[in-house]
């Protein structure tokens, strides 16, 4: 009984993400969500107190999913090459497997709710990633750089490739698909660039 309820809540949450991505925050209402999810409005209120509560819970769910995806099998004490490879793979899988979630995260990142929800994430996230980075610098596996430059070299290339992939085209509008092989080729270059 309880398991089925959680499944229903999950289904409503995913549907709400889909609607927000498609129509924006203003396009989401309990009535519309009920219709789209094929349930009565009363059912939605069993799980969510009101629209604000729905949006907040959806945002928290999406952030949790992003964090758990990013850190699957990752340990900040890993060697730099191993750890970065795991990060790239996790982040790529998350973005390619959950394109709606990834777009939703971009949408909420700059909203007042997003700022609030992300505050907690940022602390958790940056503590782990800092430990990883400083460990690698200590072991002389990583050059010491200002954080912005480190991020721009270590992660931005992956995000750009995913962007090309999502657009379905790369430079000069040529068709582009990101696969594991391309990802690994790029990652190799990134590690080479960051190795002292």
């Amino acid at each position: 009984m309880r398991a089925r309820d959680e499944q229903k809540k999950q289904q409503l949450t995913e549907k709400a993400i889909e609607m927000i991505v498609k129509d924006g925050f203003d396009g989401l209402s309990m009535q519309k969500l009920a219709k789209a999810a094929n349930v009565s409005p009363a059912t939605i209120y069993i799980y969510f107190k009101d629209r604000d509560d729905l949006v907040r819970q959806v945002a928290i769910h999406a952030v949790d999913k992003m964090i758990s995806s990013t850190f699957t099998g990752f340990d900040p004490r890993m060697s730099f090459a191993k750890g970065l490879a795991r990060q790239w793979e996790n982040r790529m899988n998350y973005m390619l497997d959950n394109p709606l979630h990834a777009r939703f995260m971009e949408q909420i990142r700059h909203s007042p709710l997003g700022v609030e929800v992300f505050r907690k994430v940022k602390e958790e996230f940056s503590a782990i990633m800092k430990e990883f980075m400083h460990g690698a610098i200590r072991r002389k596996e990583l050059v010491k750089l200002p954080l912005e430059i480190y991020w721009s070299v270590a992660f931005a290339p992956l995000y750009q490739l995913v962007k090309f992939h999502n657009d379905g085209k790369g430079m000069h509008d040529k068709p582009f698909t990101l696969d594991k092989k391309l990802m690994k080729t790029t990652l190799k270059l990134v590690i080479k660039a960051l190795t002292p």
Partner: protein
Amino acid sequence: MKTLVSANTRILVFKTDIRYEKDLDAVEKALTFLPGILSWNVDRHDAENILRIESPTSTPADIIAAMNQGGFICIELED
């Protein structure tokens, strides 16, 4: 009967004509006399001014009667 959220708390959902902030005091007054209301809230973003109540004891009829007495329209939304 609505889905159970915990052992015996029911969630009851009504559409109402609670439109304004100032109405909330009157709703509070209307509901005070009902025993066992754990929490209530009004979704002010919703076109149907949904009143949501968590209570292990009150029936929909109790709530509708109390709200009507307080001067509000109150109609239960069924599952």
